[in-house]
């Protein structure tokens, strides 16, 4: 297929995934911010939400002042100045979808196009709690429908593989960033400030990736910080875990190399990253430092992104 089309598909999937992740993040932060003041520590959840999306610098640069519920939701959901805001994500996704319409099925295009049209109608200034919640549900639904219609209607060919690669690359990045924001509270040796707040912080992490119930299914016990880390990094059965994302990334890169009859640097890199994740154990990760482990991962993931771009997308 055309390199430009592959590039558009890859980024289309990334932006749809990013919009959904950001919507979940805002929901989780809203829930956390509804806690009584006594249950909080120093940093507010809105600063953490900015950190998790890697937009803190952009937020400050845009002169938004203090990170409050209002200003951060505006920035993360609607700001045209934030290229990763939900609105910007949908704009880019829709523009990309439009220029690769020939590679999308009708269901996929209609999902993106009508989701984009719907979200245009939302006026941030007049948004009440309920409307915001509806809006965020709508965004998640666009992403779920898009994902589902891709799964159910697309031919299994390179277009599908590039789309899926985008989804998993973005998902891995997001999971790692969310964990990195809270790396300190996940450390089992860290003195607990006690009370219920830890519980809510950990559940915040799981909620933001919609994994709270799954955690209980896997561990059959209360939230333990180190298990949250294990769950989201090393558990293959958790579809948002880093190892599961890389399992998929490797699979789709291999499918491409099989179809094209040759492999290159992205296949090798992905396999290396997957191998390291599969070999890792929780004790080792914490010994080396969770924060460092995660920031290394974010870097490697970005490096793989460049390798894919170089090999296929230009």
């Amino acid at each position: 297929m055309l390199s430009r089309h592959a590039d558009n598909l890859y980024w289309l999937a990334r932006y749809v995934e990013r919009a959904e992740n950001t919507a979940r993040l805002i929901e989780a932060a809203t829930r956390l911010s509804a806690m009584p003041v006594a249950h909080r520590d120093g940093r507010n959840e809105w600063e953490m939400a900015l950190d998790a999306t890697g937009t803190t610098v952009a937020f400050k640069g845009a002169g938004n002042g203090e990170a409050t519920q209002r200003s951060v939701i505006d920035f993360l959901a609607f700001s045209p100045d934030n290229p990763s805001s939900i609105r910007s994500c949908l704009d880019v996704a829709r523009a990309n979808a439009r220029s690769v319409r020939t590679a999308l099925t009708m269901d996929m295009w209609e999902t993106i196009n009508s989701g984009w049209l719907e979200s245009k109608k939302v006026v941030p200034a007049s948004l009440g709690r309920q409307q915001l919640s509806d809006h965020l549900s709508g965004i998640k639904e666009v992403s779920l429908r898009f994902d589902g219609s891709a799964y159910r209607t697309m031919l299994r060919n390179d277009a599908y593989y590039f789309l899926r690669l985008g989804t998993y690359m973005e998902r891995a990045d997001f999971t790692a960033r969310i964990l990195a924001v809270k790396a300190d509270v996940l450390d089992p040796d860290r003195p607990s400030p006690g009370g219920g707040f830890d519980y809510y912080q950990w559940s915040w992490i799981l909620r933001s990736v919609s994994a709270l119930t799954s955690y209980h299914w896997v561990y059959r016990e209360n939230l333990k910080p180190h298990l949250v880390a294990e769950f989201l990094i090393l558990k293959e059965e958790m579809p948002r875990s880093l190892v599961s994302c890389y399992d998929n990334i490797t699979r789709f890169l291999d499918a491409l190399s099989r179809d094209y009859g040759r492999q290159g640097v992205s296949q090798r890199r992905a396999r290396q990253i997957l191998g390291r994740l599969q070999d890792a154990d929780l004790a080792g990760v914490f010994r080396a430092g969770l924060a460092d482990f995660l920031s290394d991962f974010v870097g490697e993931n970005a490096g793989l992104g460049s390798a894919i771009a170089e090999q296929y997308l230009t």
Partner: protein
Amino acid sequence: MGPAAFDEMNGDGTLCRPAYGLIKSWLEQTAPEYLKRRQEEAEFLFRRVGITFAVYGDAEAEERIIPFDIVPRVLTSTEWGTLSKGLTQRVTALNRFLADVYGKGEIIRAGVIPEDLVWRNPSFRPEMIGVKLPSDIYVQIAGIDVIRTDDKDFYVLEDNARTPSGVSYMLENRDVMMRLFPDLFAEARIHPVENYPDELLATLRSLAPASAPGEPTVALLTPGSFNSAYYEHSFLADRLGIELVEGRDLFVKDAVVYMRTTEGPKRVDVIYRRIDDDFLDPLVFRPDSALGVPGLVSAYRAGNVTLANAIGTGVADDKAMYTYMPDIVRFYLGEEPILKNVPTWRCREPDSLKYVLDHLPELVVKEVQGSGGYGMLVGPKATRAQIDDFAAKLRADPDNFIAQPTLALSTSPTFVGEGIAPRHVDLRPFVLSGSDKVRIVPGGLTRVALKEGSLVVNSSQGGGTKDTWIVEDPA
């Protein structure tokens, strides 16, 4: 505006023409509220599917939908038979003409066409002289605009021989009508148009260069998603199952065109291009254009790629050349033209100019190179000042204009607001010329002037479209 126009449904009076029996009784039996609801549904479908076009210089309405009218326009098989014969004849002559003006120039030597009309035509491309094209086909895809003023004759209003658009609307209108009114289709027995993409692909493939290895690769070249017809480009690429490429996706090496793919360079043999000549190749035409492909013309001249339509076809579709079309048909085919020309004054001829200047309030005056309803004077609708302005332009550059009587375009019943009313229509059938034969699917794009009394059907001027039905003759 003269006497009432011929109506496709009611003819000259109140008697329903046979082809319209079903439509008439449907309209009489259906409540306006129901029609209105369906009309809204149709618009919703167009909007959701994204069947939009961009209007240049209209930032507010970056993407608009073309208004769609739910009342189909109907022609009988007999009428269509005549029309399609006439279209085949006309397009065959157009292709012979282009091969001649870029070849031996016999029609000029025979004195049928004035030499300067060809050589000094801004659409004439000297780069094309002596270039040999597969089967001598220049206009693979033609959109011929026809109108009628009575139940006998069709007139050609314009030959679009460059990159005619609108065929996606022909296909989408049919789709939407079938979704909205399945019962009507069960009764009406309408000839299908759905095979157009197959016919187009067969046409393009039949004209692949001899040097193409094996199965030829066809691609559609678009200026990109900001172009007003982008929807159509992506729609067609999709239906044809070919790549939709932009200039930046292509490159030329050793006079062969390749596209950049995820598997490396891939040779392209036939390009259905929807970019104007001027923007095709910055090395030959406009150097400031980033839309095209450097070196494309060299590959073309080397015979390694087919362009559809060919470069330089504009010389056949300007309005000055139009006036010679009947002569062109006679010269190449030795036949009388089946489709008539609208009587036209060539302002370049002093007698005609004098007549036109004396009768401006009755005439429609058009720029020879104009399109889309721009740069024209509609005499009966113009103010004194507009007429005086135009007269000055005419005197300054008479070669640039032609004039025609204001024709009473036929009307067709159309759903407007709360009810049905007659509105003026034209029809653009699409004629495909391959190395083996000419193909025309039975139908075309009917455009309708939605404003009462208006004769301007262009979408850029607020016109709408209808589904076009070719039905069996009533027994």
